[in-house]
Structures are given as C-alpha cells and as structure tokens.
C-alpha cells in the first residue's frame, strides 16, 4: 500500500480532479484484489507505474478541459458526473488489466532467467566454453571466470609487485658495490621468481588454456607482442642484448648462437601452432569438439616457451 501512495505524489502536479478520484478507484481495486498484489511480489519498477498512471490520467483527462468548466456546476449535470465516473472506472479497469499482464510477463521472464542460469552452470561444469569473454562484457559479471583463473590473476598481481621490488633492489645494488656472492644470490632469487611465474601459467593453462594463450591478464601493449601466452624469447633477447655491454667475445658468440637457435625453435613451434589451429578448425567444422585432446598439447607448448624464456634468463645471468 505504501508504494501506491508515493506514486500519486507527482500526480498532484496535474491538479485535475481526476487523480484524486482515481486514488479512490485504485485503492479500492487493490483492496479487492488483495492477495494478488502483495508488496513483496510486485517487481514493477517505479517508473512504469508512474507512466501507466500518467497514461490513465491522460485517458481520463481527455475531457479535463470540459471538467474544469463543470467543476463548479457538477450539481447541475449529474449525468455528466456519472459519465465521468464511468470513464474513470473503465480507465482504471484497463490499467489494472495492463498491470496484470505486465506482471505476468515479468514472472515468466524471471523463471526463464533462472532456468538459463541453471543450464549455464551445468554446461560450465561439464567444461563447455560459452564464450567467456563475451559473457563477461555483455552481462557485466566478473565471477563468470572459474575460480582458478581468478586465483591466477590475483597471484599475478602479487607476482608483479614482488618483481618490481626485486628490480628496485637489483638497481640500487648495482649502483653501489656489492660482492659477487650477493649479486649471484639476488639473481638466483630473480630466476626462482620467474620459474614461479611459469608454474602459475602452467597451472592456469590446465584450467583454461585459451585464457592463457590470449594473455588475458596482460596489458594491451603486452598483448600486441603475444606469442603462445608470453613474449617471444628472441624478441626479448633483441631487447636485452644492447644492454649487455661489455661482453666478452665468447659471451657474444654464445648469445648469438642462442638467438639463432631461439629463432629456429620459435619458427618450429609457430608452425606447430598453425597446424594445431587448422586441425582444430577442421574438427569444429566436422562437428567434433575434442577439447580434451588438444589441451595437453597446449600445455606442452607452454612449457616449451617457459624453457625458452628461462634460457633467456640464463643469458641475463651471465651478464
């Protein structure tokens, strides 16, 4: 009942005789319909009600100009009063019917939504991908991702923080003088840190390989250079090499060899990935979604990449 009274507040602006009369009509109808529209079950948003009311006032107010004239002379035209009342009743009745229909629509939509959500949960449990990215953006849910992936993102955040701390530490240490032993231990820690990242990625790849392959946790700039879930080791080498001055001839030779073998390994893996995409596309076209069969391949590829990057780190270590 509270809801009905608040809706009529704006109506007073119209300052017609109608709404006041209608209030009586509405309240009466609500009382009559009693159990149907208990406050708890009414889901209609405020606006809709106001709109329907304003609709009704416009319906009932069609003859408003005339009514103003007759305000003073109601006693003289009882039949006009009757006509007006009848129109009101009719309008109110129509309004009630419209409201009933709308509520029913809402109820069925609600049930449908519940069913869909249940289906979605079931499908997800069975391991089908229902367009993860599309869902998250379209429906605005962030908990559509599996808990494992959410955990990975959190872990990655921590990893980056730790990484920054280690880099700062290394920088300050390099400016000062520090024993070789200390330096070595710092580098060892950095290496361990990277291996930790590889383990995280590997675990995440087992949960959602596409997520890792598309580098969803990375910045858009990082994703530009994406190759099997990370940077190309050869690119990393290219970036790092100028900073390695001075290098002994032997070191230089080693790095060049590493660059070349890296390139070759990458080419081989890239072609393997292309073949994987073709095979996958073919199976999809043929109607077989053999997800289980290629996921292990992906994780293998991931491990490969990690080994490649670890070699890069070893070069870094040498320098």
């Amino acid at each position, binding site marked *: 009942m509270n809801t009905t009274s608040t809706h009529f507040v704006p109506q007073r602006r119209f300052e017609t005789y109608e709404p006041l009369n209608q209030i009586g009509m509405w309240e009466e109808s609500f009382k009559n319909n009693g159990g149907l529209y208990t406050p708890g079950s009414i889901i209609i948003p405020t606006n809709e009600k106001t709109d329907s009311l304003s609709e009704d006032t416009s319906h009932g107010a069609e003859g408003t100009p005339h009514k103003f004239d007759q305000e003073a002379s109601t006693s003289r035209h009882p039949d006009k009063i009757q006509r007006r009342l009848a129109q009101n009743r009719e309008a109110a009745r129509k309004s009630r019917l419209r409201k009933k229909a709308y509520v029913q629509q809402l109820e069925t939509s609600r049930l449908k939504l519940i069913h869909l959500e249940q289906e979605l949960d079931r499908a997800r449990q069975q391991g089908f991908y229902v367009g993860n990215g599309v869902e998250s953006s379209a429906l605005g849910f962030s908990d559509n991702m599996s808990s494992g992936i959410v955990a990975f993102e959190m872990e990655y955040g921590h990893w980056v923080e730790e990484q920054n701390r280690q880099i700062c530490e290394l920088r300050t240490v390099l400016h000062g003088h520090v024993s070789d032993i200390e330096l070595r231990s710092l580098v060892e820690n950095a290496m361990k840190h990277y291996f930790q990242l590889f383990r995280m990625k590997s675990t995440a790849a087992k949960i959602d390989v596409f997520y890792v392959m598309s580098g969803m946790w990375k910045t858009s700039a990082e994703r530009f250079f994406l190759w099997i879930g990370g940077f190309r080791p050869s690119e990393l080498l290219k970036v790092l090499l100028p900073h390695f001055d001075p290098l002994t001839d032997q070191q230089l030779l*080693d790095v060049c060899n590493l660059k070349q*073998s890296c390139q*070759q390994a990458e080419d081989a893996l890239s*072609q*393997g990935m292309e073949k994987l995409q073709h*095979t996958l596309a073919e199976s999809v076209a043929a109607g077989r979604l053999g997800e289980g069969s290629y996921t*292990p391949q992906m994780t293998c590829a991931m491990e*490969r990449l990690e*080994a490649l990057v670890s*070699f890069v780190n070893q070069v870094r270590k040498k320098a």
Partner: protein
Amino acid sequence: MDKVVRMSSEKGVVIFSKSSCCLSYAVQVLFQDLGVHPTIHEIDKDVECREIEKALMRLGCSTPVPAIFVGGKLIGSTNEVMSLHLSGSLVPLVKPFQANLC
C-alpha cells in the same frame, strides 16, 4: 618391442609421430631447418599403434609422440629436443646426419 628397436636404430634421425600431433610437426620443422631429413614413422597409420605407444613409453618417453631417436639413441620428446637445441648441443649431435646443402 622389436619393431620399435629396429625402427629406432635406423641410421640418422628417427621420429615417431602421429599425423594429428602438432608438436611432432613442430619438431619435424625444426630438424628440417637444421638441414636434417629425419625418418618419420607415423604410428597412427600403423596397425600396431598401441603396442608401439606402450613400447615408447616404456623406453622413457613421458608422451609417446613425438619420440626422437638420433643414431639409435633416444633423445626424448619435444621438451628435450628444444632444450638441447637452445643450449647448443643439438646441432653437433645431428651434424653427421645433416644433408649437404648446396
């Protein structure tokens, strides 16, 4: 398994693969880049595929394919081959089997 032993002891680089395996394909590409022409046995085209798989696993491969043998000796799977290559040890290993590129 005799068949596997026989096939793997063939001269040069021998790769056991499957036509559907993409990592096998990657390994093949790598060897070709190095100028080696490996002998490739696609075991999924073989009737005794299952036995071959088991035999390869028993020999120590974590995954049956790809399994790479050089000069009769088992090198391992993709991981091992790539690691060797990155450390620079693969090329000397296959040098005797490199085709002379004109």
